[in-house]
């Protein structure tokens, strides 16, 4: 059976679906030249599809709504958000955690899967890394504007000042500043370094003067010298090795924001691994949400094959189970700790005013993804897309439940209260989705969305036979 008919065929025997020979990471028949042509043409020669303009216009409009909401916040103050005591942390922290978590899949794909020599990552790592950068940018907006005076955000960094004060390094919020800014810098570098050889390809193929000049500057004189590649590969592996513990540390630090506090439901040792797994879970869901339409509209089924989608589905299933274990442990701690506040917290979560959110999150994150156990479902693109959407919503609900249910009824019943996001909370959140999508549209249009030089290395002809000495 040839590979070509796999996706057009109605029926494939179940036991064959996972065979790497049946669905390779790149469809046979490609050469170095066709890989270069196909990917670079999207940025250079192909007419921009009308759908691109429509999609970009919508996303850009939403991004404008974000800027309007932020301007409103600066003019009026953080009071326009629905925050108040007892729920002093609301959408800002929920969205920060959600966005950062989404970003983590990009680093996992680009760094951890590189170190594990999973070469299927090659076709998805470039846009997954782009997704990381844009997600971190969206995440950063929330804490910076939550300060109320974002123009003083530099106070977060330790610098000698006339007040003769230093930041309190014992606070996990301070660790966040370092973790997130390091993460953003290293991810941006990793992405840019990965792009240099592809910029050189675009420079050499661009027909317009402006294309040659701009891509030429970005390529920085890259010409594929063996000596340069030699150092380049060393640096690339090094960065992957650095990014791996970094990505784990970032979400661990984020979870410390909660665990260091003594609020019931937050003060738990399970949080760091459970947050990291949740981040990867949400991130892979987002990669699927992006990869499925991209491969369809840009005709990249040759490069992003069913094998990629299936592998991502499996990772989602695995991390989803870890997250499920986390939920189980939270409930278990509530009972086993014999602490009345912990016990009340978990009962309140399951049966209190926010119970519908809790059960919706259990459905989205634990029950719905179990469908992925079935080979047939893992091979259905619409099922994967819908499951990924459900998981994304579920992971947002998870952060909502963790943040809000723990705060709204804590030790003192007299200070209990309810929380709901205000109009401006929602417009800011939806606006960041617009910004994220708008940036992605620009990325798809102007940069090679798949790493061209890495795709060349996974072509079968790129495997050098060992010379006989």
């Amino acid at each position, binding site marked *: 059976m040839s590979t070509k008919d796999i996706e057009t065929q109605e029926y494939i025997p179940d036991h064959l679906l996972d065979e790497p020979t049946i669905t390779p990471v790149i469809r046979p028949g490609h050469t170095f030249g066709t890989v270069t042509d196909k990917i670079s043409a999207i940025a250079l020669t192909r007419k921009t599809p009308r759908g691109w303009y429509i999609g970009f216009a919508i996303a850009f409009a939403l991004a404008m709504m974000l800027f309007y909401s932020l301007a409103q916040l600066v003019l009026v103050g953080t009071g326009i958000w629905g925050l108040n005591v007892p729920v002093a942390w609301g959408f800002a922290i929920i969205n920060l955690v959600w966005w950062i978590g989404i970003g983590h899949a990009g680093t996992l794909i680009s760094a951890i899967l590189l170190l594990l020599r999973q070469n299927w990552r090659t076709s998805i790592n470039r846009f997954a890394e782009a997704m990381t950068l844009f997600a971190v940018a969206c995440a950063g907006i929330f804490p910076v504007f939550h300060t109320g005076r974002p123009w003083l955000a530099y106070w977060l960094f330790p610098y000698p000042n006339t007040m003769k004060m230093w930041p309190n390094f014992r606070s996990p919020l301070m660790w966040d500043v370092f973790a997130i800014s390091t993460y953003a810098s290293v991810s941006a570098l990793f992405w840019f370094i990965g792009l240099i050889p592809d910029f050189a390809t675009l420079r050499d193929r661009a027909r317009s003067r402006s294309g040659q000049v701009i891509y030429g500057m970005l390529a920085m004189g890259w010409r594929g010298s063996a000596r340069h590649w030699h150092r380049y590969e060393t640096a690339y592996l090094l960065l992957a090795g650095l990014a791996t513990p970094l990505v784990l540390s970032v979400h661990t630090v984020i979870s410390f924001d909660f665990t260091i506090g003594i609020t019931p439901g937050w003060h738990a040792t399970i949080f760091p691994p459970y947050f990291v797994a949740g981040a990867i879970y949400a991130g892979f869901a987002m990669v699927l949400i992006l990869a499925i339409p991209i491969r369809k509209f840009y005709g990249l089924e040759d490069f992003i094959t069913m094998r990629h989608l299936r592998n991502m589905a499996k990772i989602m299933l695995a991390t989803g189970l870890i997250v499920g274990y986390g939920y189980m442990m939270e409930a278990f701690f509530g009972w086993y700790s014999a602490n009345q506040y912990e016990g009340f917290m978990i009962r309140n979560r399951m049966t209190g005013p926010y119970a519908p959110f809790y059960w919706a999150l259990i459905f989205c994150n634990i029950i719905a993804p179990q469908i992925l156990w079935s080979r047939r479902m893992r091979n259905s693109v619409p099922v994967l897309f819908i499951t990924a959407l459900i998981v994304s919503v579920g992971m947002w609900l998870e952060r909502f439940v963790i943040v809000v249910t723990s705060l709204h009824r804590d030790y003192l019943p007299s200070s209990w209260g309810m929380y709901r996001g205000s109009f401006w909370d929602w417009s800011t959140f939806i606006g960041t989705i617009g910004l994220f999508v708008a940036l992605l549209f620009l990325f798809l249009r102007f940069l090679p969305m798949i790493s061209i030089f890495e795709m060349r290395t996974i072509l079968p002809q790129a495997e*050098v036979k060992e010379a006989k000495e």
Partner: protein
Amino acid sequence: MGNGELKNVRYTAAYFRREEDLIAAAREARAAGFEIHDAFTPFPVHGLDEAVGLRPSRLTWIALIAGAMGLGAGLALQIWTSVYDWPLNVGGKPFNSFPLFIPVAFELTVLFSGLIAICVLLARNRLWIFSKRLVFDRVTDDRFVLVLKARDASFDINKAMVIFDRAGALRVIEGDQFV
């Protein structure tokens, strides 16, 4: 081997279609006593560094030292500010709450290591935005190029052509002033 700039020296470059051909030609040329200037490929070819005689990169050591600097800087910053310059009593925790300084020290280790390794990579490869370099045709697409130095009269073009032909070279060009 120098760092890649070859001034006022003639060169001979051969184009190949496959990386195996390039590696075979590089090995033979080196064995025959030719001086390899460089090779150009559209992607990192495994085994090429050894075939053209490159030593392992020292970048890993630079990254290690940079990381150690970051770790030292991170710890020094936190201990000096929180213990000596502005001892602040937060919830009765000791001024030198060492375990709480680990996250920031770790992040700075990674940051220093990554930033410095990349700066060194760019500097050593002389990559910068206004770089004007000769780029061989299609070498960023699907061609592999081997460049030999033709420094003086001892360079035997006929002998080189035999090696190139045997490895299946598509074409051979000569030029001077390699930039």
